């Protein structure tokens, strides 16, 4: 039977129909009552047709039909329901699979399970629930509790261990008799999914019935990712999928898309996909996934193994913090930063070489380091013999003390070319040999070597030479040492001996060297090392995937530190990133060569249902709509009947239809309008750049802001190349802030705090390069000796919610004092207030790989003043200040305007102006 009722008992309501019929017939509708003064006259009129007009038979029929439709709808009819034939009298065990294979149609599964439990509750039959990825002893539970569990479930990034489930189910079936088992299955799994099916089928003798719900969905898996010199490569396999287009997306750590490609999947075979990108970009990739497939199975994670070579960097110490440009490590660091992950030695480390080697680098770079201690030598020897690359740079120290770890024999002391006491000019580099790894790198003409360490002209020196000077003396030499290699630059890594380190060629050389460096861990060794490491450090979960292939916000406590041997996503170690800031390891949702199989449904003892919703039709809404339509027809007809069907009825029903039509049409039109409506204010501002101020609600302040900015805009137009439109007042939380480069915000202490939405918008604005000028206009308050004005308190409260950076009073040499006029301070109506800007941060090298987002172009995102700038800017048509200024000097208005111009220029030009400061020096240097 394909029609099924969820609540068949409601059908008994049909028995009431005769009673409805009776009442409809007996009780006519009440007549209209009309107040009519001449009633007394009418008493003489004989009663005409005193009996009420009975509803005609077909009206009765219509109404009975409406009643029966509603009753039937209440019984919850389903057409071709899923699993309707299930026996629901017995205890029922529901097994719900929640692995990644269930993610694609998860909502459907939850809906179906919920409706099953609802039905079981209606039938008063006990229920037990087993969630496949949370196996535990099965017991009967409250229906509501089961519903709660189900609603809180999310698909996981691993697939169930069915062997484990078998045990629990087995135990349950032994404890209980007379049970039904409903398995809402994932269809795909490891080999044990087939076993589980066989096991369930085998239970047939002990239990009542086994039903399996399966959705006929497809599955795409990405696996076996490898990273080679050329590309990132992985396997795509589609199960049960016709050819369809998917979009492959590679994201970096912060979730920004680096690479996107549409690919055709579903030819039936395994396919290999290559992502061919420049190394710098590839190294940033953290996740590769199919954008339109919401399952963890189509996600590949890239960890440090696939990313970067590890490089240990150690050089003779100089004052690196204060003068980074003179440090030899600075240039190596710059050249390598995009190619490798660099480990440093902390100052004060007693045994730097060992510390670096403990990090297991592929390359150890020593810049002018004298290897004196025996242990260092030994460590390096093992390192290189095991396949590491030792890259050394010469320098004054190494020139004097030559040790064994050099590729060629060297002469003591360097050779100086082109110095004051030398006849020779600086030498250029000779084109690279075919045998050199640097072959085909182009050599800039201006690279010149002033000083080098010479090699003894031994036999075979040529073969060891990777680069040489014009005169044939070696510049870079290399020699195999054990399984590894020692490379020597005969120059320093800074620009004291040559300008090679500041040329692009240097970067190219480093790139080649990194490229030839081996993965120092071969797979076998890697495991051993990690095993050792696990005893000391644990790889804690950093970011984990859920079943949809997205990163979860929270990491459940059940997740343990990574088992070093784990390579498959499991309950204990779900797919995701593990490690710390220095080392990351990824567990893939689908491990290397993990076999995914399809369930075998051929067992006779199991009834199989499809989960696909297209088959099940809930008739409730259709019935109710039909009832509503009949009800309308009834209304129209009974209205019409009284007037003898004719023109009026037709007119009325058409009016009704027209009104209905209008209603729908109107809503369409509204929707259409809503789509295209732009705030005219925003359109204006988008078309013409302009200054903006925050509307505080205090008319005085707002007016001042308007006048002030108007005058400032005028001055800007007159004096600078920036021609702003008329200033505009913006309401926080309503207007789009992104259209304004600078926003002037006079603080009104009586104003309510900005809403959460407004705060968010402000935060966004500040983080993406916007500048807000807060004006507490309370400087004269300070004069009176008050410590904290209401404005300040208000601003402080606000600043706790906003990402306001550290501030300092404007330093004398700050670029804001030089952007247009040369100023000492920013005066407004008062001239005693301090102006605060963001503290300048001098970036240091070690933060580089965090890639901090500095959208602000080193413009202070917040400027705070108390001088009431707008009041001082405001002028009338004749250029006279509108407000009285404290010092009263004529100069003050002009100086305030200059300050305003500087402010605007500062926000608009960013660090360009600060670079301009050096222009003269640069020009001088060029002409020299």
């Amino acid at each position, binding site marked *: 039977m394909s029609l099924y009722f969820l609540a068949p008992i409601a059908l008994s309501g049909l028995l009431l129909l005769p009673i409805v019929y009776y009442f409809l017939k007996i009780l006519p509708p009440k*007549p*209209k*009552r*009309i*107040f*009519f*003064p*001449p*009633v*007394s*006259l*009418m*008493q*003489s*009129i*004989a*009663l*005409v*047709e*005193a*009996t*009420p*007009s009975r509803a005609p038979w077909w009206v009765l029929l219509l109404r009975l039909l409406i009643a029966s439709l509603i009753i039937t709808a209440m019984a919850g009819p389903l057409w071709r329901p899923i699993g309707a034939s299930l026996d629901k009298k017995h205890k029922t065990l529901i097994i719900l699979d929640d692995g990644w294979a269930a993610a694609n149609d998860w909502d459907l599964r939850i809906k179906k399970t919920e409706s099953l439990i609802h039905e079981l509750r209606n039938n008063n039959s006990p229920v037990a629930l087993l969630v496949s990825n949370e196996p535990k002893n099965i017991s009967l539970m409250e229906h509501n509790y089961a519903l709660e569990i189900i609603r809180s479930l999310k698909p996981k990034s691993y697939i169930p261990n069915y062997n484990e489930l078998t045990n629990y189910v087995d135990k349950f079936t032994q404890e209980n008799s007379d049970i039904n088992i409903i398995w809402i299955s994932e269809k795909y799994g490891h080999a044990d999914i087939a076993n589980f099916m066989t096991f369930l089928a085998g239970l047939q003798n002990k239990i009542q019935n086994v039903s399996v719900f399966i959705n006929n969905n497809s599955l795409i898996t990405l696996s076996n990712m490898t990273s080679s010199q050329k590309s990132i490569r992985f396997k795509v396999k589609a199960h049960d999928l016709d050819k369809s287009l998917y979009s492959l997306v590679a994201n970096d750590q912060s979730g920004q898309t680096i690479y996107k490609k549409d690919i055709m999947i579903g030819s039936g075979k395994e396919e290999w996909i290559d992502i061919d990108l420049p190394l710098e970009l590839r190294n940033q990739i953290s996740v590769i996934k199919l954008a339109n497939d919401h399952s963890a199975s189509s996600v590949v994670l890239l960890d440090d193994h696939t990313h970067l070579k590890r490089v240990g960097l150690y050089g003779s110490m100089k004052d690196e913090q204060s003068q980074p440009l003179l440090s030899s490590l600075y240039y190596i660091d710059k050249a390598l930063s995009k190619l490798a992950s660099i480990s440093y030695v902390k100052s004060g480390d007693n045994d730097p070489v060992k510390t670096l080697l403990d990090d297991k680098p592929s390359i150890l770079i020593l810049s002018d380091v004298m290897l004196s201690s025996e242990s260092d030598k030994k460590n390096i020897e093992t390192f290189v013999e095991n396949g590491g690359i030792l890259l050394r740079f010469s320098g004054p120290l190494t020139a004097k003390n030559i040790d064994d770890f050099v590729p060629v024999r060297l002469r003591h002391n360097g050779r100086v070319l082109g110095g004051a006491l030398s006849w020779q000019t600086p030498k250029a580099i000779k084109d690279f040999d075919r045998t050199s790894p640097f072959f085909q790198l182009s050599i800039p003409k201006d690279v010149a070597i002033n000083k080098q360490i010479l090699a003894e002209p031994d036999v075979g020196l040529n073969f060891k030479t990777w680069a040489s000077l014009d005169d044939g003396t070696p510049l870079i030499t290399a020699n195999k040492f054990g399984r590894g290699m020692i490379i020597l630059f005969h120059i320093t890594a800074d620009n004291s001996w040559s300008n090679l380190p500041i040329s692009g060629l240097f970067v190219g050389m480093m790139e080649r060297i990194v490229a030839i460096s081996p993965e120092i861990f071969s797979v076998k060794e890697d495991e051993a090392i990690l095993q050792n490491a696990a005893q000391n450090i644990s790889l804690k979960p950093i970011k984990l995937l859920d079943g949809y292939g997205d990163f979860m916000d929270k990491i459940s406590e059940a997740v343990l530190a990574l088992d070093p041997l784990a390579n498959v996503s499991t309950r204990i170690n779900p797919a995701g990133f593990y490690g710390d800031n220095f080392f990351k390891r990824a567990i893939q949702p689908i491990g290397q060569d993990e076999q995914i199989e399809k369930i075998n449904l051929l067992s006779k003892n199991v009834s199989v249902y499809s989960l696909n919703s297209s088959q099940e039709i809930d008739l409730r809404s259709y019935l109710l709509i039909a009832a509503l339509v009949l009800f309308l027809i009834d209304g129209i007809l009974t209205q019409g009947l*009284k*007037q003898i069907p004719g023109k009026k009825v037709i007119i009325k029903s058409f009016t009704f239809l027209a009104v209905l039509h209008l209603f729908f049409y109107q809503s369409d039109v509204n929707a259409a309008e809503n789509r295209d409506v732009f705030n005219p204010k925003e359109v204006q501002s988008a078309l013409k750049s302009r200054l903006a101020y925050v509307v505080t609600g205090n008319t005085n302040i707002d007016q001042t802001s308007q006048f002030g900015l108007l005058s400032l805009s005028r001055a800007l137009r007159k004096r600078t190349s920036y021609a702003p439109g008329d200033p505009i007042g913006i309401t926080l939380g309503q207007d789009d802030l992104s259209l304004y480069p600078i926003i002037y915000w006079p603080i009104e202490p009586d104003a309510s705090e900005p809403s959460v939405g407004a705060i968010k918008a402000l935060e966004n604005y500040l983080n993406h390069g916007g500048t807000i000028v807060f004006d507490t206009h309370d400087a004269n308050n300070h004069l009176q000796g008050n410590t904290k004005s209401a404005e300040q308190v208000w601003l402080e409260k606000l600043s706790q919610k906003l990402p306001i950076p550290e501030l300092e009073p404007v330093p004398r040499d700050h670029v804001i004092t030089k952007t247009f006029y040369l100023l000492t301070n920013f005066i407004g109506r008062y001239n005693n207030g301090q102006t605060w800007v963001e503290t300048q941060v001098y970036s240091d090298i070690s933060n580089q790989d965090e890639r901090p987002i500095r959208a602000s172009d080193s413009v202070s995102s917040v400027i705070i003043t108390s001088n009431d700038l707008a009041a001082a800017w405001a002028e009338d048509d004749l250029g006279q200040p509108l407000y009285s200024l404290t010092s009263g000097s004529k100069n003050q208005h002009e100086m305030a305007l200059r300050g305003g111009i500087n402010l605007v220029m500062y926000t608009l030009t960013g660090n360009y102006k600060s670079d301009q400061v050096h222009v003269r020096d640069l020009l001088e240097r060029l002409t020299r």
Partner: protein
Amino acid sequence: MSRSAILETFTIQSDFYLPLSIAKALDLSASLERLLAKNQTVSSLSSYGLHNRKRAGLGERFWQYRAYEIGEDANKIDWRRSARGDQLYVKEKEFESLRDYYIWIDCAASMKFLSTLGQDDKLTRSINFGVAIADLLLRSGDRVGLLGSSAPSSSRATLEKIVHQLEENISNNFTSAVPLLIKPSKRSKIIIISDFLNNSVNLKDTLKYYADFEISGLVVMINDPCEVEFPFSGETQFFSIENNQEYYAGDAELVAEQYHKVFEKHKLQIKETAIENRFQYYHHVTNQSVDAAGHDIVESLSFCLADI
């Protein structure tokens, strides 16, 4: 001055509809006066006392001395004046023809009935007409009173008094038969405004009583268009408040024809009663224009003055 005073008092008291209808009534009377001044109607009304003061005739007030003409009755000579000189003088008095006007407006609840077809309810219209007539008469020096409520007077405060009285009657839903004055003066005229749907207004007896005193006047019958046309259909229960009567019609449309007959008969009866007793009759339906009706009513009124 008195007009605006009235308006103010009523605006302040803000009765249900009086202020508006009084204002309208005053407008109406003003427009009627203008109309009367233009038309011949003026002469017909004035000759019967409305514009009477500017000539010599029978009366009480002094009008003028004039020279005695030979042949005149010697009794007419005013000796006191004539003794002062050589000439004989005759003292003339101003012509006066004072008349009492009584206005009666039905204030029953049924008068407040307004259907969607009408412009105003019947009571509003009645007040429009009643007060407009009173104003018009007072300004031509006649004495006007509200029948059964106030004695006729020509003083300035009369109009105000009448309006106050009306207001009281309306707020009390005053229903009674037309009051019968015990000893009405023969010169009196009576103006009755009602829908005549209330059983308590026994027009026949009333008019007969006054006709015996040789008193005539004007009967204005006011109806809502709905009461005339009977535009109902469907199953309907009709009811009225004051008579506490109900009428059930299985289908009102079928009753319509009979109703028309009954109503016409009733109307005719009122008209005949009025004419029999030498009263003028005027029928007004509230969807007609107020101004036109006001003009017609004044004309009817002048006819009723004519037949003394």
